[in-house]
């Protein structure tokens, strides 16, 4: 078992090496202590298959590759290099083997979601093939992407962590402790592939848990004698190479190093931080953010609107194009044919629908759709230059018209459907594309990189935490809830009898007019009155 714990200090000026203490002579073995370090943290655990309990190892071995991405709907500010994002919820990207059983995906999901997956209230899952969607892949030759995608909106991973603890920890305190920490992470990645035969578990915290002013106060110990734990405390530094990011700080291999060792390195990066361009000496995040909202009332054709401050909406580099990647549960769908008209696109401040995969049937009700939903990539239009300069306080809206499927009748007038905020990023040309994977913090399998060529870097636009500004809209962090009108079964008791009765009445009345004795006009009038 290998562990890598990285802290990236948010404000290097406030940090001093005295906040780090290495103690190799403690009662519980070597330890590393942080005192009030304000930092983003990433904890990565690498396990080989034989280090896992048999039943768990079997779960992974069913797949050619499996990449699970979970993100919390809680808003946060990202710290480089941890700037990449996925829409809140549980994403599963995978490539099955020829031997992968048809129920493998749903079985895997059962460890994440309590209860019965066939129930309509739950995330959909009928079989691996029917429920997942195929990922369109632009660059087949270079692609390392998984072939299929599954998604379900999931607010927390507590159920999964609980199940994992029961089956895996077996009274090892360190394991309990790690998992307890993981339950407060805002994103978790699990990666497995047949070539490396290792499972990599990565959890991320954008800032210290607990009170804001406290920072990280924790002690890391060696879980077992043969374990490796490497701890880095780094800070992001300016770098002149436009495609590299640079970090300086301290690395400590627990049990080997007497004290934190100074380090400095630079690396090309797939997810390049979006920084304010004015100052090169200090690294300030770019003020461009976005919010997601739905135009009210949503009706049966909700319009998702992305709002940006227009004065900051200028490409960080001439090659950069602004994109948004949507993950839509099957209750909503996109009508691709709408987006072929240039006038229509322009009126919505969109450039094009670059890609659409998954459930795109324009007529099917939700209960007929077996796929979990669909994923779409749009290129967004930018405000004209004079607009940006003259309208310094204004906002720029891009809207994406969606359509609702009919949802099952229920004992309420409306059913709530979660729509996770999309991710928004500048996709820019990268000369050093091939070297990006050498970055120790590289993150892949997010659902959209495969839609771009290999020489692409992504500069993510941060979602603004302050949402729910539209009155009447229910909002819960980085997820919007849509109220979908449904047939209210509390009122529908007499629909069957009423319909059949009226049809039979009209039918008999008409038969009477057809075959009854004719008696001039009076009969018609009587017939009409009867109707």
């Amino acid at each position, binding site marked *: 078992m290998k562990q890598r714990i990285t802290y990236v200090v948010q404000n290097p000026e406030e940090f001093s090496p005295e906040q780090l203490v290495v103690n190799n002579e403690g009662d519980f073995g070597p330890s590393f202590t942080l005192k009030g370090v304000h930092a983003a943290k990433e904890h990565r655990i690498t396990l080989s298959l034989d280090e896992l309990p048999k039943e768990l190892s079997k779960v992974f071995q069913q797949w050619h590759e499996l990449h699970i991405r979970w993100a919390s709907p809680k808003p946060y500010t990202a710290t480089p290099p941890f700037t990449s994002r996925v829409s809140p919820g549980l994403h599963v990207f995978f490539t099955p083997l020829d031997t992968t059983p048809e129920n493998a995906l749903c079985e895997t999901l059962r460890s994440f979601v309590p209860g019965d997956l*066939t*129930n*309509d209230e739950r995330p959909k899952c009928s079989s691996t093939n029917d429920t997942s969607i195929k990922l369109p892949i632009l660059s087949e030759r270079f692609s390392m992407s998984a072939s299929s995608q599954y998604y379900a909106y999931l607010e927390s991973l507590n159920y999964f962590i609980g199940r994992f603890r029961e089956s895996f920890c077996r009274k090892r305190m360190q394991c309990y402790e790690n998992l307890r920490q993981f339950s407060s992470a805002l994103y978790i990645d699990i990666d497995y592939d047949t070539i490396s035969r290792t499972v990599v578990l990565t959890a991320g915290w954008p800032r210290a848990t607990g009170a804001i002013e406290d920072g990280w106060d924790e002690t890391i110990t060696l879980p077992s004698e043969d374990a490796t734990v490497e701890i880095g405390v780094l800070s992001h530094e300016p770098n002149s190479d436009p495609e590299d990011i640079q970090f300086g700080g301290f690395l400590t291999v627990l049990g080997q190093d007497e004290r934190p060792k100074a380090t400095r390195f630079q690396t090309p990066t797939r997810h390049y931080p979006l920084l304010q361009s004015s100052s090169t000496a200090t690294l300030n995040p770019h003020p461009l953010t976005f919010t997601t909202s739905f135009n009210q*009332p*949503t*009706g*049966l*054709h909700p319009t998702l609107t992305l709002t940006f401050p227009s004065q900051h909406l200028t490409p960080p580099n001439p090659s950069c194009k602004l994109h948004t990647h949507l993950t839509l549960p099957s209750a909503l769908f996109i009508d691709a*044919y709408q987006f072929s*008209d240039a*006038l*229509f696109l*322009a*009126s*919505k401040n969109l450039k094009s629908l670059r890609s659409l995969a998954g459930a*795109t*049937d*324009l*007529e099917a*009700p939700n*209960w007929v759709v077996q796929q979990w939903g669909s994923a779409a990539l749009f290129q967004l239009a930018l405000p004209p230059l004079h607009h940006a300069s003259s309208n310094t306080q204004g906002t720029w809206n891009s809207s994406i018209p969606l359509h609702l499927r*009919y949802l*099952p*009748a*229920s*004992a309420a007038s*409306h059913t709530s459907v979660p729509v996770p905020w999309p991710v928004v990023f500048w996709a820019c040309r990268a000369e050093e594309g091939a070297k990006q994977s050498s970055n120790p913090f590289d993150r892949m399998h997010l659902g959209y990189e495969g839609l771009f060529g290999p020489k692409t870097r992504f500069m993510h636009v941060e979602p603004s935490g302050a949402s729910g500004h539209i009155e009447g809209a229910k909002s819960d962090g980085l997820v919007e809830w849509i*109220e*979908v*009108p449904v*047939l*209210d*079964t509390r*009122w*529908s008791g007499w*629909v*069957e009898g*009423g*319909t*059949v009765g*009226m*049809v*039979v009445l*009209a*039918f008999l*009345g*008409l*038969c009477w*007019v*057809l*075959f009854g004795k*004719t008696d*001039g*006009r009076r*009969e*018609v*009038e009587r*017939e*009409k009155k009867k*109707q």
Partner: protein
Amino acid sequence: MAFSSFFRNPSLVFSASILLRAVFLLYGLWQDANSPMKYTDIDYYVFTDAARYISRGQSPYARDTYRYTPLLAWLIYPTVWPGGFWFSFGKILFAVGDVAAGWMMFRILKEYRKMGDERALKFASIWLLNPMVATISTRGSSEGLLGVFVTALLWAALAKQIPLTGFLLGFAVHFKIYPFIYAASIIWWLDDTRTGSKKHTRLALAIYSLLTFIGLNIAMYAIYGWPFLEHSYFYHMIRIDHRHNFSPYNTLLYLKSSPKPTGLEPTAPSLELERLAFLPQLLLSAVFIPLALAKKDLPSTMLAQTFAFVTFNKVCTSQYFLWYMMFLPYYLPDSTLLQSPSIGITAIIFWIVGQVAWLQQGFQLEFNGYSTFVPGLWASSILFFLVNAGILGVIIHDTKTKTKKTENRST
């Protein structure tokens, strides 16, 4: 009076009807070029996309929601040629079809209703100068094209052109299925012919229409295979029609196709009466109405059949109104609806009230997101259904008593 002299001159009326369509067509081009809201019907993009697939040697069914015979895509093949004019070819064709249908109505009214030019033109104008008809065809909906086939079918039948009638019937059924209901009325009506070889006439009609229908289907199946049958026929049988529309069955179909919430006690087994919805519809439109009325008056019988088919259908949208509108010019002249203004005006007011009530509820659902399925939308669709049934009752009654009236008049 200028107004009456207008209707005395066929070339004026036809010019006006062509002008009306030309104006709508040009306005549509302007709106499409200048507004993100398109004048052109969504279906027209489906047809033209399908034609484009055909031009690349692919199947028209490669286009989602193309549920028509491949002949339609072939008919508008020129829309794939470059340029805005050719893209509008289909709309022009549909509009020309409209005017041609109106011209045939005019001829039928003169020949078989013994009307003078003025009266015939006035009633043909229900179709020719109807803005709804002109809008539907210039927006590029294929329902407009149906008018020319069905009116030609009626004319051929009235003229006793048996091979042509058979061919048109087979073609119309291949094109849109529902005209099969006219087979019963035409065959029953032919029985009324005084010629001795009536058996042969009916048999000939059956053979010609079946040969055409089967021949077209075999040809299309040979070229386009299973997707042709699946999309142009089977789809219409298995579709759920759960989305809100004017049909009285609509709410019931949504309720019945929707999965039951799990975890509840299983409710009493439903009778699934909605599965029998085709029974009153087909009994009325394809059996009872032809049997009772065809021999009295073929055009009015066809109107009653179509009206019954649309009223009792499991799905109903405003384009379906066009199906019966094309028969109104033959029925209205002697109808109670015109003879007795109180009944006529009451009927039209009730019809409009039914429409408005439904549209208001539909708007509240579609755009404001209110759950109006029950009782609002259901009640207004039932109201609309009953109003239509009442009007159908009047049409049936008028047609049934027709012989008596015409006899009275002739004595």
